[in-house]
């Protein structure tokens, strides 16, 4: 955002991003300054205008000093000059909910850890971290995937990652979220994002699943509150 644009809007880009409620269609993160090293494009839609005004912005943040740069090359050049004894390696570009984010990750960082603790996408839950409960399920190229068993570096390369935050615009529920709503298919809610993403993964492959299809699709998921019946009803479309 230029200084002129900043004056027009009355908001700095950082201030704008901090208001997650005004960020629609992009990652709902408070500030990318929290990321180890982050770049990406964010689509901003000012919902107070009609029709909505959409602006695409890109920024790359120095993980050490927090300065922002318009391109990755700019960041790398700055980083090399400003921090000669540090390294900016292990960069991976993740396409999450339709937007690209370039992050510095450790080799052993799981996708779940990066989504949550580096990108602030807390809708993805970690419950067992051993692939036994399904709470961390996201879609990778439309397929339900345990993000606790997926390394972040495996998830780059143009793969399309979808989390619970990307399932709807945050205001209107997606069809499967609406079915979970109608069926009250949750209790404490901690496992629910995983069940919803697993259900969406099934629906991507099979638009009219049976109850047995649904049970199989969520067979790697645990709900200790005891709501399997409701979840199966929601995925199969019953009420």
């Amino acid at each position, binding site marked *: 955002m230029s200084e002129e644009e900043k004056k027009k809007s009355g908001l700095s880009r950082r201030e704008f991003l901090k208001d997650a409620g005004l960020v629609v269609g992009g990652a709902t*993160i408070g500030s990318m300054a*929290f*990321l*180890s090293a982050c770049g990406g494009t964010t689509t901003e839609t000012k919902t107070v205008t009609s029709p909505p005004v959409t602006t695409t912005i890109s920024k790359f943040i120095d993980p050490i000093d927090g300065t922002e740069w318009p391109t990755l090359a700019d960041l790398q050049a700055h980083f090399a000059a400003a921090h000669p004894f540090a390294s900016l390696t292990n960069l991976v570009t993740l396409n999450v909910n339709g937007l690209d984010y370039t992050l510095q990750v*450790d080799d*052993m*960082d799981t996708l779940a*850890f990066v989504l*949550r*603790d580096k990108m*602030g*996408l*807390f*809708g*993805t*839950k*970690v*419950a*067992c*971290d051993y692939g*036994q*409960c399904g709470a961390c399920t996201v879609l990778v190229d439309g397929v339900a995937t345990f993000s606790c068993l997926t390394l972040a570096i495996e998830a780059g390369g143009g793969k399309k990652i979808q*989390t*619970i*935050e990307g*399932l*709807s615009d*945050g205001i209107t*529920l997606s069809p499967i*979220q609406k079915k*979970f*709503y109608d069926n*009250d298919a*949750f*209790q*404490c*809610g*901690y*496992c*629910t*994002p995983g069940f919803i993403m697993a259900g969406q993964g099934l629906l991507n492959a099979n638009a009219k699943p049976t*109850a047995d299809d*649904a*049970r*199989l699709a969520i*067979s*790697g*998921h*645990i*709900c*200790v*509150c*005891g*709501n*399997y*019946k*409701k*979840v*199966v*009803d929601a995925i199969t479309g019953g009420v």
Partner: protein
Amino acid sequence: MALTPLNVIGDPTNKDQAINLILTGKMDYYADRLPGRKLYGAYKTSTIAHGNIKLDASGNPLIDTSKALAEPGVKAVVTYKDVPTWTQGIFYWGQPVAGVVADDWFTAIRAASLITVQYDVAATVFDPDAAAQPGSPLSGGAPNSNTSTPSVVTRGDVNAGFTQSDVVVQADLPWTTTYQHNMLEPHGTVAWWVGDDLYFWTGSQDIHSGKNAVVNSLGIAANKVHAFTHGTGGGHGDKTGAPCGVPAAVMSKKVGGAAVQVVETRPVNMTTNTRQFDAKASIKMGAKNDGTLVACDVTALSNTGASGFFAIAFYGLQNSYTIPNYRHSVTTVFTNQPSRGAWRCVGDPPAAQEYDRVLDTLAEKLNMTPYDLRMKNLRVNPQTGAFDLPAQDAPNRVWGGIGLKDCFTTVYNNSGYATKWHKTGTKTLADGRMHGIAITGHLDSHGSVNGATRGGSLVITADGKALLIVGGARGSEGAETICTSIVAETLGMVYADVRVGEWGNTDVSITGGIQAGSGWTGGAGSAFYTVGQNARTALFTAALTKAPFNTISGITINDLDAKNSSVFLKSDPTKTLTYRQVMSGTAPIAVGGTGWAATLRSRSVGGLPIGTVCNTNGDAATCTEVAVDTETGQVEILGTWNAVDTGRTIYKNGTIKEMLSGCELQIAQSLFYGDVYDSATGALISSFYTEAMVPTAMDMNGGVFNVYDLESDDSAGPYGAHGIGEPCVTNASSITCAIYNATGVWVDFNHGAGTPNKILKALGKA
């Protein structure tokens, strides 16, 4: 019984505000806090089950943290010397003894594993039978003994009762299984310091108790501790304090007050969880030939592990039936296993597994159906048919819960029990499997144990709406609806005008008590009933100062009523003001209030006035129909009918869901759950979901679940409502009894539920 018509409560279109947050991933649990700017803590746990951490000559613990500190990214280590809730003494395998703070969770876990600890190993005792014997090694859970003083309840003359009995059965029953919560959200806390002030977010069912525990452990002033909880990802009785709160606060202090998130790994969490205790009982029961119960004598042991609390509770047997000569004696046994505690119930499930078995055995001897035996002896008022007689063990108290008989008859009628029941082991299905059916039911102690006073407050905003401040956790879904529905009903507001402004913030709230299926309705619900009444008085008083009411001489707030968010004159409903008009130009109204579940609230009973202390409880009955394959040991649930006396159904959708989940948990308790320990070390083997036999959707056919919420217009509880979370779960014994009806064998639940292997073993085939 005709129910008083209500405007908001029970409306099936009411939904909880939390739902959209859950469905969009925005419900905030403790680990969803402070993105990216926190450090991470992990535990080193003991590799012995009993003993002490060795000290050197200077009295310093022999805990070598050098390798952990040398790991890149490690910021600090702590030991039991730093953390007041940890001890030098070790009482079970897997007990936290030290911790690491690091840049990320994986580094913290890895570094914690590098800590070495030297122990003085003491003799262990894992078997509760052995622990109860004189001369057994001491487990250390209690001083000088592994057993508690027995808890005894007696009424009548038990020996004389047996003399008067025509038929007596005596059963020395095996241990029930022990199982744990397995809640999805692991124990954890994010803590940080600002100067001398401690802030922490945790997953807690009772944040005020959690705060108090931290205050007491750290010895700091209560006004210096600021505790918060919003979503809680399952608790089931285990998250009643602030899990990891003290270690997280200490770790944060160690790194200069930076935010530290402590999350237990799944194996550590599964070990530190409290779990349902295992219990065994010898039960002797006598009856007349016509089925009238005359005497009952129970001697029971409860294994509470290293330092648990609660014990097997015979509340259901003691109070559901008229047994004039009754005694039970319960001894708690301490062993070197992880601690026991509440699990969706304080102690009724293992008791029901034991006494329902004896009731069915007695019915067989009497040549009656188990259902007829129970119905003949239900402690109902012969005039009203309800449970409103004085308590047998507290004759100056009346009962709040009154619907058990209706629960029994509902499941009896809907299941077709009358035509389906048969003598034990006599019905074979066309596919060769054995058919069985059983009914169990009981009063459950939850209402009474949640008799503590709870509080709440609200603000009436300038637009005439109510904003509640709730002192408990927002999750589970439904917690909000209890509070908002009760306030809306009391104020005559439309449901959408009442919302919760703040949850689980100890700085601004009064304790709401435990957020749980059983306690929340009676506790927080009663508080907000009072809050609503106080706000109604304030609003009506304000309305009297405004036209048209200020033009009518002599009227008081008693002449006013409210509906659909408008106040009106009872004698002339055309004279009305909306709440928005009442609040226009009026100073904001903020009121608080407290309530207690165990008082007569909605009506007088037995001449006792409203406000009299009473017993209040949940009650439920379940009928289960099974097919048992005696070649494979597999059990299929052909149908389950679950009726719960809700008193008054406040949140229709949530209530139905709770009962359906009760069906699933009955199956899980009876056929799946079970802790497995290494017999040599006491280590928990079942420390992952698969080993803990947690069922999945593949194991459940919800199409055969049938649930019924029965409204009995309870005299206690807000608008007669009481908690329903646990009573339905306790009827897991109906599955055990149905398997017996099918096969003629009782499944031994010791070290695990009724798995196929257990059933084959009972049949002599394994």
